[in-house]
């Protein structure tokens, strides 16, 4: 466990050591600010961050790959993966440590948007309902964690960070837009209802939208947590496969 925490701590520190970490946070704040101003800060309109959180999936799409791209890729590129793999940490431990580090950085990334909530409370009368804001932040973390795990797997597969970013970006885009696009291609009729159900089951947006309305559904939590866990395990397997190449 301590090895995992050490890897995570080292990962978080590395984000802040490099300009890319700060640029990521600034980029996210810029996008979040833009979204907040256009959706939630209109005089005489309901004071809620619902629209902001409903778009959370899209908001994280360009940012999370920037965080995940270097998790393992950087080690592969620089060759530091070899000493890491010969360390006492297991492959799963390494991947979990990296993931945990990315997740902590993600939390740090999201934290400054609390100023948006504070501004909204300041300019609203009466104060907005805190429930949907809390669940919205939970959604940001769960969705972000899920995307991060996808990016982690891709980062494990390539030593090229640019490629890792691009692949992760399009994979997340596929998760966000894929079910809707494929759903439109499914022919109407009861015979294809199973396909519609499957697509509805894997769609990210409706789940994020529920959180933004203040609803925490355990099935959504399980979806994001199990999805993240699955990609972390697959990342560990991908990393372990290097030993046998």
């Amino acid at each position: 466990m301590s090895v995992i925490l050490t890897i995570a701590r080292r990962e978080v520190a590395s984000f802040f050591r490099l300009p890319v970490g700060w640029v990521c946070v600034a980029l996210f704040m810029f996008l979040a600010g833009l979204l907040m101003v256009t959706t939630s800060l209109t005089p005489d309109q309901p004071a809620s961050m619902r629209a902001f959180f409903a778009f959370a999936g899209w908001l994280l799409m360009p940012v999370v790959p920037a965080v995940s791209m270097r998790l393992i890729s950087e080690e592969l590129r620089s060759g530091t993966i070899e000493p890491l793999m010969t360390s006492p940490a297991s492959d799963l431990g390494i991947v979990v440590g990296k993931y945990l580090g990315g997740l902590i950085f993600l939390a740090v990334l999201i934290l400054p948007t609390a100023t948006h909530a504070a501004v909204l409370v300041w300019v609203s009368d009466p104060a907005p309902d805190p429930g949907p804001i809390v669940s919205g932040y939970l959604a940001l973390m769960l969705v972000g964690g899920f995307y991060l795990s996808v990016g982690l797997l891709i980062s494990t597969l390539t030593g090229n960070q640019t490629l890792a970013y691009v692949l992760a970006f399009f994979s997340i885009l596929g998760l966000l837009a894929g079910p809707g696009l494929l759903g439109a291609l499914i022919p109407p009729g009861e015979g294809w209802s199973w396909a519609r159900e499957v697509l509805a089951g894997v769609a990210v947006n409706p789940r994020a939208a529920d959180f933004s309305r203040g609803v925490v559904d355990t099935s959504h939590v399980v979806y994001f947590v199990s999805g993240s866990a699955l990609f972390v395990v697959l990342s560990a397997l991908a990393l372990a496969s290097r030993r046998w190449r």
Partner: protein
Amino acid sequence: MSTRSTGRLRFGLVAGVVGLASIVSAVLLNVLASSFSRRFDLTATGEHQLSPRSRAIASALSGGGEATIAVVGDLSGIDAASKASVRDVLERFAAESGGSASWSMIDVGRPGGQERALGLLGELAGRDAAVTRDRERVVRGVMAVCERAAADAEESLIPGVSRALTLAGDRGVTPARALAEAERMLLEMPSWPRQLREAARRAEGELARAEGGVVIPAPGAAARVMASVLGPVASALVRLEDSLRVIDAAPGGAGGSELAAAAEAIRARREFIDAASETALSIKPTGSESAAEVLRVTAAVLFVGPTRGDEPGLVRALPVEAVLGAGVGAGRADARRQAEVVIARELARLTNPKTPIVVLAGCEPLLGGRRLRMYENAKRRFASLGADVVEWDLMRDPTRPDLTGLNPSGDRPVVWVARFPDNALPATSPDDRPGIERARMMGAAMGALAREGASLLVSVGASIVPISKEPDPADAVLGLFGLRAASDRVVMREDYDGPRRMARVDVTADVSAGAIGPASAIADSIRGLPIRIPWAVPIEGSAPAEGGATIAPGWEVATAGRGAGWWLESRWRPFRQIPRAERDFVKDPPAFNENEDERGGPWCVVAAGERPGHGRAQRLVVVGSNEWLVFAESVEEMRRQGQASLEDFAAAGANVQLLESAVYWLAGQDDLVGQGAEARAVARVKPLEPGRLLILQVILIAGLPACVLLLGVLYRVATG
């Protein structure tokens, strides 16, 4: 095979198994999670949960066959957020019903939507088949009457009348107006056969009506077509008969026996056509017909009740706006709640299809034949809710209206809504009666009803009767429930416009905090709404009540006069005689006089009572104002003239809400009493000056990211 190859193979196998197992586990976990999911609503107002009343209504459906709610139509114009929230509400209802309610959303603008909608209509038509056949038989009977009446008009009626009028013209002086009227009728009559036959032909078309190849007979529409012709023909025959009798009765006996015979023949035909018209009016559309009719013009929400035995389930069709897309902007926050209220009410109606009959009783001055349209708003509201409304004008006919036509089995609840007239008014014409007499007439009629166990909604206004130590006529009803109207004094409020002092009589009632027991259902339905009670008089307890009435605690539904500046004014009459628009400018408006008036509010202005009755509890709601409904009506009129404010609208709507809740409660249909309609404060962004808003926008979009970058630079400098 080398050790490395073996190792690779082994690793590949293990990795494959572990990877596959992980994927399968994740899928299984998600399937289980969606089957046993739990939802936590973090909103402060419980926005995503059904209210206890809605849950009770949904649970009541279980075990009684399947009810269906279908949102059908082109839904492309409805915003996604509204659709999502209504979907959520429908899902909640379906879940709470334990599988006894299902729902679907059919967007005919999407591929396959049209087919699904037609399939649903075909299914409904199939369910209604037996009822449709019965109604079709009656419609065909009325069509036969149309054909016979057309033939009779051509062969005998028109020639007969023509002959009689010719004779009348030839034989001497006739009343000119009556003769002109009769001749005008005679000119109109040749078009009747064509109209009657055309109506029968159109009715035939309605009976064979089809939508996209699906046959959905429309006996209700067919009946309406025929009634639209039979009714005017019957009215014209009345006028013709009257004219002929006037001519016949004129000095000199202008037409003699021919006219009398013609008038008699017309009477017989008129009765025949009248009966057919009544029959046509009594034919109601079938559920499938109503659904198809609504869907033809707009998207709709269909509520289909469970079929019980051979009886098809009730079908109700509401325009989709009633449930979806209820709000924009701030209103959207309440859209879900509104959808829930409407769905709950409709589901409750499916399980209890006995809609109340509402008798609106008035005893207003005779205004030269004009009717005082006091209840138009309320009538429209009740009609939209499926209740039958009967108006009873005691001044025209003091006999109680016969409700057997509407209630042949006698099992529908009847609610009597009575407005006691202003008893300070004098008679306005020789035929009219003074207000005090009209109030006594109303008191006698309502007292008799109350003693027979009827449920009543009584509106009592300020009265001059108690001044002469007589009991208020309304006490004949109220006394049975241990209540009395202190109608000699009016709730007033002092107000100032700068130094100018004014007396206000437009009272906005507060829902009584202590409303429990019988009064609580109504109180809950209007809590937070601005109920306007003009010229309010206090309602008091007057124990002992006759017959064991429930009088305390909790008979107070709403009160008025909390806080400073309120009093009960005893010399209100001169102020009332001043026109409304001038009251604010009166030099010396009423003021509190400690010898005659009273302070110490709040006073009860809306009360409810219940007492053991014949079979079920007899109920009473009394409102201490006889203008609270007229107010809603007048706002409607002001709206047409563009003079009503938003506050007026809100209050008018709230008053009608009180009326609706009271009527359902009096009908014993507590499930249909609107649930807590308390207006919740929706958080809004305050109006901001453009400059200040721009600064905030710049800070959020550029300032904060710039701060982050600056912090990064500082960090790097600090850490070397």
